[in-house]
Protein backbone atom coordinates (compact mmCIF):
# COMPACT_ATOMS: atom_id res chain seq x y z
CA UNK A 1 0.00 0.00 0.00
CA UNK A 2 2.68 2.49 1.09
CA UNK A 3 4.84 1.13 -1.69
CA UNK A 4 2.30 1.90 -4.39
CA UNK A 5 1.64 5.36 -2.91
CA UNK A 6 5.37 6.08 -3.01
CA UNK A 7 5.48 4.85 -6.58
CA UNK A 8 2.69 7.30 -7.52
CA UNK A 9 4.49 10.22 -5.86
CA UNK A 10 7.80 9.21 -7.45
CA UNK A 11 6.19 9.08 -10.88
CA UNK A 12 4.55 12.48 -10.28
CA UNK A 13 7.87 14.05 -9.24
CA UNK A 14 9.65 12.54 -12.19
CA UNK A 15 7.09 14.02 -14.57
CA UNK A 16 7.47 17.39 -12.86
CA UNK A 17 11.26 17.26 -13.18
CA UNK A 18 10.96 16.50 -16.90
CA UNK A 19 8.60 19.42 -17.40
CA UNK A 20 10.78 21.90 -15.53
CA UNK A 21 13.89 20.93 -17.50
CA UNK A 22 15.87 23.60 -19.32
CA UNK A 23 14.34 23.13 -22.78
CA UNK A 24 10.79 23.45 -21.43
CA UNK A 25 11.67 26.64 -19.52
CA UNK A 26 13.22 28.12 -22.68
CA UNK A 27 9.84 27.61 -24.32
CA UNK A 28 7.53 28.55 -21.47
CA UNK A 29 9.28 31.68 -20.13
CA UNK A 30 9.41 33.46 -23.52
CA UNK A 31 5.83 32.33 -24.19
CA UNK A 32 4.65 33.91 -20.94
CA UNK A 33 6.53 37.11 -21.83
CA UNK A 34 4.97 37.18 -25.31
CA UNK A 35 1.52 36.63 -23.81
CA UNK A 36 2.14 39.46 -21.35
CA UNK A 37 3.38 41.76 -24.11
CA UNK A 38 0.37 40.96 -26.32
CA UNK A 39 -2.00 41.68 -23.49
CA UNK A 40 -0.27 44.90 -22.37
CA UNK A 41 1.25 46.47 -25.48
CA UNK A 42 -1.07 45.80 -28.43
CA UNK A 43 -3.68 48.57 -28.59
CA UNK A 44 -6.98 46.69 -28.91
CA UNK A 45 -8.36 49.28 -31.33
CA UNK A 46 -5.63 48.37 -33.84
CA UNK A 47 -7.52 45.13 -34.46
CA UNK A 48 -11.08 45.84 -33.34
CA UNK A 49 -11.35 48.62 -35.93
CA UNK A 50 -11.71 45.82 -38.51
CA UNK A 51 -14.66 44.30 -36.67
CA UNK A 52 -17.32 46.96 -37.24
CA UNK A 53 -20.63 45.95 -38.80
CA UNK A 54 -20.01 47.69 -42.14
CA UNK A 55 -16.82 45.73 -42.82
CA UNK A 56 -16.98 43.23 -45.72
CA UNK A 57 -16.79 39.52 -44.82
CA UNK A 58 -13.33 38.98 -46.25
CA UNK A 59 -12.00 41.47 -43.72
CA UNK A 60 -14.14 40.79 -40.66
CA UNK A 61 -13.68 36.99 -40.57
CA UNK A 62 -9.85 36.93 -40.80
CA UNK A 63 -9.72 39.91 -38.42
CA UNK A 64 -11.83 37.95 -35.92
CA UNK A 65 -9.43 35.03 -36.11
CA UNK A 66 -6.51 37.43 -35.63
CA UNK A 67 -8.25 39.07 -32.66
CA UNK A 68 -8.76 35.63 -31.15
CA UNK A 69 -5.05 34.97 -31.46
CA UNK A 70 -3.70 38.35 -30.37
CA UNK A 71 -6.18 39.88 -27.95
CA UNK A 72 -7.85 37.05 -26.13
CA UNK A 73 -5.19 35.43 -24.05
CA UNK A 74 -7.25 35.58 -20.89
CA UNK A 75 -10.82 34.33 -20.71
CA UNK A 76 -11.90 37.60 -19.05
CA UNK A 77 -11.21 39.43 -22.34
CA UNK A 78 -12.98 36.78 -24.45
CA UNK A 79 -16.54 37.17 -23.17
CA UNK A 80 -16.83 41.00 -23.32
CA UNK A 81 -15.23 41.17 -26.76
CA UNK A 82 -17.44 38.32 -28.01
CA UNK A 83 -20.58 40.07 -26.74
CA UNK A 84 -19.34 43.33 -28.30
CA UNK A 85 -18.71 41.86 -31.77
CA UNK A 86 -22.04 40.03 -31.68
CA UNK A 87 -24.26 42.86 -30.46
CA UNK A 88 -22.59 46.00 -31.77
CA UNK A 89 -20.03 44.89 -34.35
CA UNK A 90 -19.66 42.55 -37.29
CA UNK A 91 -22.34 40.14 -36.04
CA UNK A 92 -22.83 36.50 -35.12
CA UNK A 93 -20.48 34.91 -37.67
CA UNK A 94 -17.27 36.82 -36.86
CA UNK A 95 -18.14 36.71 -33.15
CA UNK A 96 -18.30 32.90 -33.32
CA UNK A 97 -15.03 32.76 -35.27
CA UNK A 98 -13.44 34.85 -32.53
CA UNK A 99 -14.90 32.64 -29.79
CA UNK A 100 -13.63 29.49 -31.48
CA UNK A 101 -10.13 30.69 -32.30
CA UNK A 102 -9.42 32.43 -28.97
CA UNK A 103 -8.96 29.41 -26.66
CA UNK A 104 -7.65 27.07 -29.36
CA UNK A 105 -4.53 28.89 -30.44
CA UNK A 106 -3.31 31.26 -27.77
CA UNK A 107 0.46 31.74 -27.91
CA UNK A 108 1.10 29.85 -24.67
CA UNK A 109 -0.78 26.72 -25.69
CA UNK A 110 0.66 26.82 -29.19
CA UNK A 111 4.35 27.09 -28.28
CA UNK A 112 3.94 24.56 -25.49
CA UNK A 113 2.24 22.12 -27.87
CA UNK A 114 5.06 22.58 -30.36
CA UNK A 115 7.75 21.96 -27.75
CA UNK A 116 6.16 18.92 -26.10
CA UNK A 117 4.31 17.18 -28.94
CA UNK A 118 6.20 18.35 -32.02
CA UNK A 119 5.95 21.35 -34.30
CA UNK A 120 3.82 19.52 -36.93
CA UNK A 121 1.20 19.08 -34.22
CA UNK A 122 1.29 22.79 -33.35
CA UNK A 123 0.99 23.76 -37.04
CA UNK A 124 -1.97 21.38 -37.50
CA UNK A 125 -3.63 22.84 -34.40
CA UNK A 126 -3.08 26.39 -35.71
CA UNK A 127 -4.23 25.98 -39.33
CA UNK A 128 -7.19 23.68 -38.65
CA UNK A 129 -8.41 25.96 -35.84
CA UNK A 130 -8.35 28.99 -38.15
CA UNK A 131 -9.97 27.23 -41.13
CA UNK A 132 -12.68 25.63 -39.01
CA UNK A 133 -13.16 28.72 -36.84
CA UNK A 134 -14.01 30.74 -39.95
CA UNK A 135 -16.16 27.89 -41.37
CA UNK A 136 -18.17 27.51 -38.16
CA UNK A 137 -18.67 31.28 -37.97
CA UNK A 138 -19.98 31.40 -41.55
CA UNK A 139 -22.25 28.39 -41.03
CA UNK A 140 -23.73 29.94 -37.89
CA UNK A 141 -24.25 33.26 -39.71
CA UNK A 142 -26.09 31.43 -42.54
CA UNK A 143 -28.30 29.31 -40.30
CA UNK A 144 -29.33 32.24 -38.09
CA UNK A 145 -29.41 34.94 -40.74
CA UNK A 146 -32.92 36.23 -40.00
CA UNK A 147 -32.26 36.65 -36.29
CA UNK A 148 -28.99 38.39 -36.95
CA UNK A 149 -30.78 41.20 -38.79
CA UNK A 150 -32.83 42.01 -35.71
CA UNK A 151 -29.79 42.88 -33.63
CA UNK A 152 -29.41 46.20 -31.95
CA UNK A 153 -28.90 48.70 -34.78
CA UNK A 154 -27.80 51.61 -32.60
CA UNK A 155 -24.50 53.43 -32.54
CA UNK A 156 -21.43 51.83 -34.05
CA UNK A 157 -18.77 53.87 -32.30
CA UNK A 158 -17.41 50.85 -30.44
CA UNK A 159 -15.42 49.53 -33.38
CA UNK A 160 -14.25 52.86 -34.76
CA UNK A 161 -11.06 54.71 -34.01
CA UNK A 162 -7.47 54.52 -35.05
CA UNK A 163 -4.55 52.96 -33.27
CA UNK A 164 -1.25 51.53 -34.32
CA UNK A 165 1.81 50.04 -32.72
CA UNK A 166 4.96 52.07 -32.13
CA UNK A 167 8.37 50.96 -33.40
CA UNK A 168 9.84 50.12 -29.97
CA UNK A 169 6.86 47.84 -29.32
CA UNK A 170 7.20 46.12 -32.70
CA UNK A 171 10.95 45.60 -32.14
CA UNK A 172 10.22 44.22 -28.69
CA UNK A 173 7.83 41.65 -30.19
CA UNK A 174 10.35 40.62 -32.83
CA UNK A 175 12.98 40.15 -30.10
CA UNK A 176 10.63 38.10 -27.92
CA UNK A 177 9.65 35.84 -30.81
CA UNK A 178 13.31 35.35 -31.77
CA UNK A 179 14.02 34.44 -28.14
CA UNK A 180 11.40 31.70 -28.37
CA UNK A 181 12.74 30.47 -31.71
CA UNK A 182 16.45 30.56 -30.75
CA UNK A 183 15.71 28.87 -27.43
CA UNK A 184 13.66 26.00 -28.82
CA UNK A 185 14.62 25.24 -32.44
CA UNK A 186 17.00 22.26 -32.67
CA UNK A 187 19.18 23.32 -35.62
CA UNK A 188 22.91 22.63 -35.78
CA UNK A 189 24.07 26.26 -35.74
CA UNK A 190 22.37 26.69 -32.35
CA UNK A 191 23.23 23.26 -30.95
CA UNK A 192 26.91 23.36 -31.87
CA UNK A 193 29.38 24.09 -29.06
CA UNK A 194 31.79 26.89 -29.91
CA UNK A 195 33.98 26.74 -26.80
CA UNK A 196 34.12 25.07 -23.42
CA UNK A 197 34.89 26.23 -19.92
CA UNK A 198 36.13 23.95 -17.14
CA UNK A 199 35.11 24.80 -13.60
CA UNK A 200 36.64 22.87 -10.66
CA UNK A 201 33.35 22.30 -8.79
CA UNK A 202 33.46 18.61 -7.84
CA UNK A 203 30.41 19.10 -5.63
CA UNK A 204 28.23 19.32 -8.73
CA UNK A 205 29.03 15.69 -9.53
CA UNK A 206 28.07 14.59 -6.02
CA UNK A 207 24.89 16.63 -6.27
CA UNK A 208 24.02 14.91 -9.58
CA UNK A 209 24.59 11.53 -7.91
CA UNK A 210 22.26 12.53 -5.12
CA UNK A 211 19.59 13.72 -7.60
CA UNK A 212 19.82 10.45 -9.52
CA UNK A 213 19.14 8.51 -6.34
CA UNK A 214 16.28 10.83 -5.42
CA UNK A 215 14.53 10.51 -8.76
CA UNK A 216 15.61 7.35 -10.59
CA UNK A 217 15.23 7.52 -14.33
CA UNK A 218 15.59 5.38 -17.39
CA UNK A 219 16.81 7.05 -20.61
CA UNK A 220 15.62 4.00 -22.57
CA UNK A 221 12.03 4.91 -21.70
CA UNK A 222 12.58 8.55 -22.63
CA UNK A 223 12.73 9.58 -18.98
CA UNK A 224 15.13 12.44 -18.39
CA UNK A 225 15.48 12.42 -14.63
CA UNK A 226 16.63 15.64 -13.04
CA UNK A 227 19.96 17.31 -13.75
CA UNK A 228 22.01 19.70 -11.61
CA UNK A 229 21.01 22.38 -14.10
CA UNK A 230 17.32 21.54 -13.68
CA UNK A 231 17.58 21.64 -9.90
CA UNK A 232 19.34 25.04 -9.98
CA UNK A 233 16.70 26.36 -12.39
CA UNK A 234 13.92 25.31 -10.03
CA UNK A 235 15.78 27.19 -7.28
CA UNK A 236 16.06 30.39 -9.36
CA UNK A 237 12.39 30.12 -10.32
CA UNK A 238 11.46 30.14 -6.65
CA UNK A 239 13.68 33.22 -6.14
CA UNK A 240 12.02 34.96 -9.10
CA UNK A 241 8.65 34.21 -7.54
CA UNK A 242 9.73 35.78 -4.24
CA UNK A 243 11.25 38.87 -5.90
CA UNK A 244 8.18 39.28 -8.12
CA UNK A 245 5.94 39.13 -5.08
CA UNK A 246 7.76 42.16 -3.64
CA UNK A 247 8.50 43.96 -6.91
CA UNK A 248 5.75 43.18 -9.42
CA UNK A 249 2.74 42.37 -7.24
CA UNK A 250 2.56 46.01 -5.94
CA UNK A 251 3.82 47.51 -9.24
CA UNK A 252 0.84 49.84 -9.69
CA UNK A 253 2.02 51.76 -6.65
CA UNK A 254 5.33 52.36 -8.39
CA UNK A 255 8.30 50.41 -9.77
CA UNK A 256 10.74 49.57 -6.93
CA UNK A 257 14.17 47.95 -6.70
CA UNK A 258 12.67 44.47 -6.28
CA UNK A 259 11.06 44.90 -9.69
CA UNK A 260 14.52 45.08 -11.25
CA UNK A 261 15.78 42.22 -9.06
CA UNK A 262 12.98 40.04 -10.45
CA UNK A 263 13.71 41.14 -14.04
CA UNK A 264 17.47 40.46 -13.63
CA UNK A 265 16.81 37.02 -12.15
CA UNK A 266 14.52 36.25 -15.06
CA UNK A 267 17.27 37.20 -17.49
CA UNK A 268 19.74 35.04 -15.54
CA UNK A 269 17.35 32.08 -15.76
CA UNK A 270 17.17 32.39 -19.53
CA UNK A 271 20.97 32.49 -19.84
CA UNK A 272 21.48 29.62 -17.42
CA UNK A 273 18.84 27.45 -19.10
CA UNK A 274 20.44 27.86 -22.53
CA UNK A 275 23.91 26.87 -21.29
CA UNK A 276 25.12 23.27 -21.67
CA UNK A 277 26.25 21.97 -18.28
CA UNK A 278 28.03 18.63 -17.82
CA UNK A 279 29.11 17.67 -14.30
CA UNK A 280 31.89 15.03 -14.11
CA UNK A 281 34.19 13.64 -11.46
CA UNK A 282 36.80 16.42 -11.80
CA UNK A 283 34.47 19.39 -12.07
CA UNK A 284 31.91 20.94 -14.37
CA UNK A 285 32.19 21.55 -18.12
CA UNK A 286 30.25 24.55 -19.41
CA UNK A 287 29.36 24.27 -23.10
CA UNK A 288 29.01 27.65 -24.78
CA UNK A 289 26.72 26.81 -27.68
CA UNK A 290 24.99 28.87 -30.35
CA UNK A 291 21.77 28.85 -28.35
CA UNK A 292 23.52 30.44 -25.35
CA UNK A 293 25.11 33.16 -27.49
CA UNK A 294 21.80 33.95 -29.20
CA UNK A 295 19.76 33.95 -25.99
CA UNK A 296 22.35 36.17 -24.25
CA UNK A 297 22.27 38.83 -26.99
CA UNK A 298 18.47 38.84 -27.16
CA UNK A 299 18.01 38.90 -23.38
CA UNK A 300 20.31 41.93 -22.99
CA UNK A 301 18.58 43.73 -25.86
CA UNK A 302 15.19 43.09 -24.24
CA UNK A 303 16.40 44.33 -20.85
CA UNK A 304 17.84 47.47 -22.42
CA UNK A 305 14.59 48.22 -24.25
CA UNK A 306 12.55 47.66 -21.12
CA UNK A 307 14.69 50.06 -19.14
CA UNK A 308 15.52 52.71 -21.74
CA UNK A 309 13.08 52.62 -24.65
CA UNK A 310 9.74 51.99 -22.95
CA UNK A 311 7.64 54.50 -21.07
CA UNK A 312 7.09 53.67 -17.42
CA UNK A 313 3.47 52.75 -18.23
CA UNK A 314 4.56 50.25 -20.89
CA UNK A 315 7.20 48.64 -18.65
CA UNK A 316 4.73 48.38 -15.79
CA UNK A 317 1.85 46.97 -17.86
CA UNK A 318 4.11 44.44 -19.59
CA UNK A 319 5.63 43.17 -16.34
CA UNK A 320 2.27 43.06 -14.61
CA UNK A 321 0.48 41.15 -17.39
CA UNK A 322 3.31 38.59 -17.71
CA UNK A 323 3.39 38.08 -13.96
CA UNK A 324 -0.40 37.78 -13.84
CA UNK A 325 -0.32 34.98 -16.42
CA UNK A 326 2.43 33.18 -14.51
CA UNK A 327 0.49 33.54 -11.25
CA UNK A 328 -2.72 32.36 -12.83
CA UNK A 329 -1.39 29.47 -14.94
CA UNK A 330 1.90 28.18 -13.51
CA UNK A 331 0.68 26.76 -10.16
CA UNK A 332 -2.14 24.89 -11.90
CA UNK A 333 0.31 23.61 -14.50
CA UNK A 334 2.64 22.25 -11.82
CA UNK A 335 -0.22 20.52 -10.00
CA UNK A 336 -1.51 19.22 -13.35
CA UNK A 337 1.86 17.87 -14.46
CA UNK A 338 2.41 16.14 -11.11
CA UNK A 339 -1.06 14.57 -11.18
CA UNK A 340 -0.68 13.42 -14.78
CA UNK A 341 2.60 11.75 -13.86
CA UNK A 342 1.01 9.95 -10.93
CA UNK A 343 -2.16 8.91 -12.77
CA UNK A 344 -0.19 7.56 -15.74
CA UNK A 345 0.95 4.55 -13.70
CA UNK A 346 -2.71 3.63 -13.06
CA UNK A 347 -3.87 3.54 -16.68
CA UNK A 348 -3.51 0.36 -18.64
CA UNK A 349 -2.12 1.22 -22.11
CA UNK A 350 -4.41 -1.42 -23.63
CA UNK A 351 -7.51 0.58 -22.71
CA UNK A 352 -6.25 3.61 -24.59
CA UNK A 353 -5.06 1.54 -27.54
CA UNK A 354 -8.38 -0.25 -27.95
CA UNK A 355 -10.38 3.00 -27.65
CA UNK A 356 -8.31 5.38 -29.73
CA UNK A 357 -5.26 3.50 -30.98
CA UNK A 358 -6.42 3.80 -34.61
CA UNK A 359 -7.44 6.79 -36.67
CA UNK A 360 -11.13 5.87 -37.00
CA UNK A 361 -14.34 7.89 -36.61
CA UNK A 362 -15.04 6.18 -33.30
CA UNK A 363 -11.48 6.78 -32.11
CA UNK A 364 -11.78 10.48 -32.92
CA UNK A 365 -15.20 10.57 -31.26
CA UNK A 366 -13.62 9.18 -28.09
CA UNK A 367 -11.05 12.01 -28.21
CA UNK A 368 -13.78 14.65 -28.58
CA UNK A 369 -16.01 13.19 -25.86
CA UNK A 370 -13.08 13.13 -23.46
CA UNK A 371 -12.38 16.77 -24.37
CA UNK A 372 -15.99 17.81 -23.71
CA UNK A 373 -16.47 16.12 -20.37
CA UNK A 374 -13.07 16.83 -18.87
CA UNK A 375 -12.11 20.35 -18.02
CA UNK A 376 -8.44 21.12 -17.56
CA UNK A 377 -6.83 24.49 -16.86
CA UNK A 378 -4.99 26.15 -19.81
CA UNK A 379 -1.78 24.30 -20.80
CA UNK A 380 -2.51 21.22 -18.66
CA UNK A 381 -4.13 19.69 -21.75
CA UNK A 382 -0.63 19.40 -23.24
CA UNK A 383 0.98 17.04 -20.64
CA UNK A 384 -2.28 15.08 -20.67
CA UNK A 385 -2.05 14.74 -24.44
CA UNK A 386 1.54 13.59 -24.12
CA UNK A 387 0.48 10.98 -21.59
CA UNK A 388 -2.11 9.62 -24.04
CA UNK A 389 0.49 9.64 -26.79
CA UNK A 390 2.90 7.62 -24.63
CA UNK A 391 0.12 5.19 -23.78
CA UNK A 392 -0.52 4.49 -27.46
CA UNK A 393 -3.21 6.91 -28.61
CA UNK A 394 -3.10 7.68 -32.33
CA UNK A 395 -2.10 11.27 -33.16
CA UNK A 396 -5.36 11.85 -35.10
CA UNK A 397 -7.74 11.31 -32.16
CA UNK A 398 -5.22 13.16 -30.02
CA UNK A 399 -5.61 16.27 -32.18
CA UNK A 400 -9.41 15.88 -32.05
CA UNK A 401 -9.10 15.91 -28.26
CA UNK A 402 -6.71 18.89 -28.22
CA UNK A 403 -8.99 20.98 -30.44
CA UNK A 404 -12.20 20.20 -28.58
CA UNK A 405 -10.87 20.36 -25.01
CA UNK A 406 -10.23 24.10 -24.71
CA UNK A 407 -13.37 24.89 -26.76
CA UNK A 408 -15.94 22.92 -24.93
CA UNK A 409 -16.46 22.95 -21.23
CA UNK A 410 -19.82 23.10 -19.53
CA UNK A 411 -18.99 26.53 -18.12
CA UNK A 412 -18.11 28.07 -21.48
CA UNK A 413 -21.22 26.54 -23.11
CA UNK A 414 -23.42 28.15 -20.44
CA UNK A 415 -21.80 31.60 -20.79
CA UNK A 416 -22.13 31.43 -24.58
CA UNK A 417 -25.78 30.43 -24.24
CA UNK A 418 -26.46 33.45 -22.00
CA UNK A 419 -25.25 35.79 -24.75
CA UNK A 420 -26.53 34.23 -27.99
CA UNK A 421 -29.34 32.02 -26.66
CA UNK A 422 -29.61 28.28 -26.00
CA UNK A 423 -30.49 27.13 -29.51
CA UNK A 424 -27.55 28.85 -31.19
CA UNK A 425 -25.21 27.67 -28.43
CA UNK A 426 -26.13 23.99 -28.97
CA UNK A 427 -25.78 24.26 -32.75
CA UNK A 428 -22.34 25.76 -32.09
CA UNK A 429 -21.39 22.90 -29.77
CA UNK A 430 -22.52 20.35 -32.36
CA UNK A 431 -20.44 22.06 -35.06
CA UNK A 432 -17.34 22.08 -32.84
CA UNK A 433 -17.70 18.36 -32.14
CA UNK A 434 -18.17 17.64 -35.86
CA UNK A 435 -15.19 19.73 -36.97
CA UNK A 436 -12.94 18.38 -34.21
CA UNK A 437 -13.60 14.85 -35.47
CA UNK A 438 -12.88 15.94 -39.06
CA UNK A 439 -9.63 17.63 -37.90
CA UNK A 440 -8.53 14.47 -36.13
CA UNK A 441 -9.37 12.26 -39.12
CA UNK A 442 -7.51 14.49 -41.59
CA UNK A 443 -4.41 14.91 -39.43
CA UNK A 444 -4.44 11.20 -38.57
CA UNK A 445 -4.62 10.32 -42.26
CA UNK A 446 -1.62 12.58 -42.89
CA UNK A 447 0.31 10.81 -40.10
CA UNK A 448 -0.64 7.47 -41.70
CA UNK A 449 1.01 8.64 -44.91
CA UNK A 450 -1.75 10.15 -47.05
CA UNK A 451 -0.46 12.95 -49.28
CA UNK A 452 -1.17 16.57 -48.42
CA UNK A 453 -2.81 17.19 -51.82
CA UNK A 454 -5.48 14.51 -51.30
CA UNK A 455 -6.13 15.80 -47.78
CA UNK A 456 -6.60 19.39 -48.92
CA UNK A 457 -8.99 18.19 -51.65
CA UNK A 458 -10.91 16.22 -49.00
CA UNK A 459 -11.09 19.34 -46.83
CA UNK A 460 -12.35 21.47 -49.72
CA UNK A 461 -14.89 18.76 -50.68
CA UNK A 462 -16.23 18.63 -47.12
CA UNK A 463 -16.59 22.42 -46.99
CA UNK A 464 -18.33 22.47 -50.41
CA UNK A 465 -20.84 19.78 -49.40
CA UNK A 466 -21.55 21.72 -46.22
CA UNK A 467 -22.17 24.99 -48.04
CA UNK A 468 -24.46 23.19 -50.55
CA UNK A 469 -26.43 21.71 -47.66
CA UNK A 470 -26.66 25.15 -46.12
CA UNK A 471 -28.09 26.84 -49.23
CA UNK A 472 -30.73 24.06 -49.31
CA UNK A 473 -31.41 24.68 -45.64
CA UNK A 474 -31.91 28.38 -46.27
CA UNK A 475 -34.31 27.84 -49.18
Amino acid at each position, binding site marked *: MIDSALKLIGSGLENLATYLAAHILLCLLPAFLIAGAMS*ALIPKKAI*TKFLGRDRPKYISYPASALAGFLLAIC*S*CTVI*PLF*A*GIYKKGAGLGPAITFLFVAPAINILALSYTGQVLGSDFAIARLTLSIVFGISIGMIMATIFKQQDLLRDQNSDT*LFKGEASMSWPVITFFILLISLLIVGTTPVSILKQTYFQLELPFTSAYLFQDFLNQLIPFDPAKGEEGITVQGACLIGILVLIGLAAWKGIQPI*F*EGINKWTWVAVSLLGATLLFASLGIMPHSEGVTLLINGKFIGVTCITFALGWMLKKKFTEDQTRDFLWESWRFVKQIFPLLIIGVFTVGAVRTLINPQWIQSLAGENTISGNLVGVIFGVFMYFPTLVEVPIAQMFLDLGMHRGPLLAYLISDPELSLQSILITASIIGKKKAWVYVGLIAFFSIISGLLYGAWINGMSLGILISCLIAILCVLSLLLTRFKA
Partner: protein
Amino acid sequence: MNTVNSEPTLDIKILGPGCANCELLNKLVKKAIESSSIHAHITKLTDPSKLLDYDMISTPGLVINNKAVTSGRIPSLTEITKFLQEATS
Protein backbone atom coordinates in the same frame (compact mmCIF):
# COMPACT_ATOMS: atom_id res chain seq x y z
CA MET B 1 -21.32 58.68 2.27
CA ASN B 2 -20.99 62.00 4.00
CA THR B 3 -23.62 64.32 2.56
CA VAL B 4 -23.03 67.00 5.21
CA ASN B 5 -19.68 67.74 3.65
CA SER B 6 -19.72 70.42 0.98
CA GLU B 7 -17.73 68.23 -1.46
CA PRO B 8 -19.86 66.27 -3.93
CA THR B 9 -19.91 62.47 -3.73
CA LEU B 10 -18.35 60.73 -6.71
CA ASP B 11 -20.16 57.84 -8.31
CA ILE B 12 -17.55 55.27 -9.32
CA LYS B 13 -18.29 52.08 -11.21
CA ILE B 14 -15.84 49.25 -11.75
CA LEU B 15 -16.81 46.94 -14.60
CA GLY B 16 -15.58 43.40 -15.03
CA PRO B 17 -16.58 39.83 -14.35
CA GLY B 18 -14.48 39.50 -11.20
CA CYS B 19 -11.15 38.64 -12.78
CA ALA B 20 -7.85 39.42 -11.07
CA ASN B 21 -7.39 42.75 -12.86
CA CYS B 22 -10.85 44.01 -11.84
CA GLU B 23 -10.06 43.20 -8.20
CA LEU B 24 -6.75 45.03 -8.45
CA LEU B 25 -8.42 48.09 -9.99
CA ASN B 26 -10.96 48.07 -7.16
CA LYS B 27 -8.15 47.98 -4.60
CA LEU B 28 -6.24 50.81 -6.30
CA VAL B 29 -9.34 53.02 -6.55
CA LYS B 30 -10.05 52.50 -2.84
CA LYS B 31 -6.47 53.41 -2.02
CA ALA B 32 -6.62 56.55 -4.18
CA ILE B 33 -9.88 57.62 -2.52
CA GLU B 34 -8.40 57.17 0.95
CA SER B 35 -5.22 59.08 0.23
CA SER B 36 -6.95 62.04 -1.43
CA SER B 37 -9.84 62.09 1.11
CA ILE B 38 -12.57 62.28 -1.52
CA HIS B 39 -16.10 61.06 -0.89
CA ALA B 40 -17.07 58.36 -3.30
CA HIS B 41 -19.40 55.45 -3.73
CA ILE B 42 -18.00 52.42 -5.53
CA THR B 43 -20.23 49.95 -7.37
CA LYS B 44 -18.92 46.77 -8.97
CA LEU B 45 -20.72 45.66 -12.12
CA THR B 46 -19.99 42.07 -13.08
CA ASP B 47 -22.55 41.58 -15.88
CA PRO B 48 -20.68 41.59 -19.23
CA SER B 49 -23.63 43.23 -21.03
CA LYS B 50 -23.29 46.32 -18.75
CA LEU B 51 -19.89 46.86 -20.33
CA LEU B 52 -21.54 47.44 -23.70
CA ASP B 53 -23.74 50.17 -22.20
CA TYR B 54 -20.57 52.21 -21.75
CA ASP B 55 -19.23 51.25 -25.19
CA MET B 56 -16.45 49.15 -23.72
CA ILE B 57 -15.25 45.82 -25.05
CA SER B 58 -12.52 44.98 -22.62
CA THR B 59 -12.18 44.72 -18.89
CA PRO B 60 -11.49 46.14 -16.40
CA GLY B 61 -13.48 49.32 -17.02
CA LEU B 62 -13.51 52.41 -14.83
CA VAL B 63 -16.50 54.76 -14.91
CA ILE B 64 -16.57 57.99 -12.88
CA ASN B 65 -19.86 59.94 -12.70
CA ASN B 66 -21.25 57.91 -15.64
CA LYS B 67 -18.28 58.80 -17.84
CA ALA B 68 -16.07 55.97 -19.13
CA VAL B 69 -12.51 56.80 -18.08
CA THR B 70 -10.43 53.74 -18.95
CA SER B 71 -11.04 50.24 -20.23
CA GLY B 72 -8.89 47.23 -20.99
CA ARG B 73 -6.02 48.34 -18.79
CA ILE B 74 -5.19 49.20 -15.21
CA PRO B 75 -4.33 52.84 -14.63
CA SER B 76 -1.60 53.52 -12.06
CA LEU B 77 -2.32 54.92 -8.62
CA THR B 78 -1.17 58.42 -9.62
CA GLU B 79 -3.35 58.30 -12.74
CA ILE B 80 -6.43 57.28 -10.75
CA THR B 81 -5.81 60.07 -8.24
CA LYS B 82 -5.66 62.52 -11.16
CA PHE B 83 -8.99 61.23 -12.55
CA LEU B 84 -10.60 61.63 -9.14
CA GLN B 85 -9.30 65.16 -8.76
CA GLU B 86 -10.49 66.13 -12.24
CA ALA B 87 -13.94 64.76 -11.47
CA THR B 88 -14.26 66.67 -8.19
CA SER B 89 -13.00 70.01 -9.47
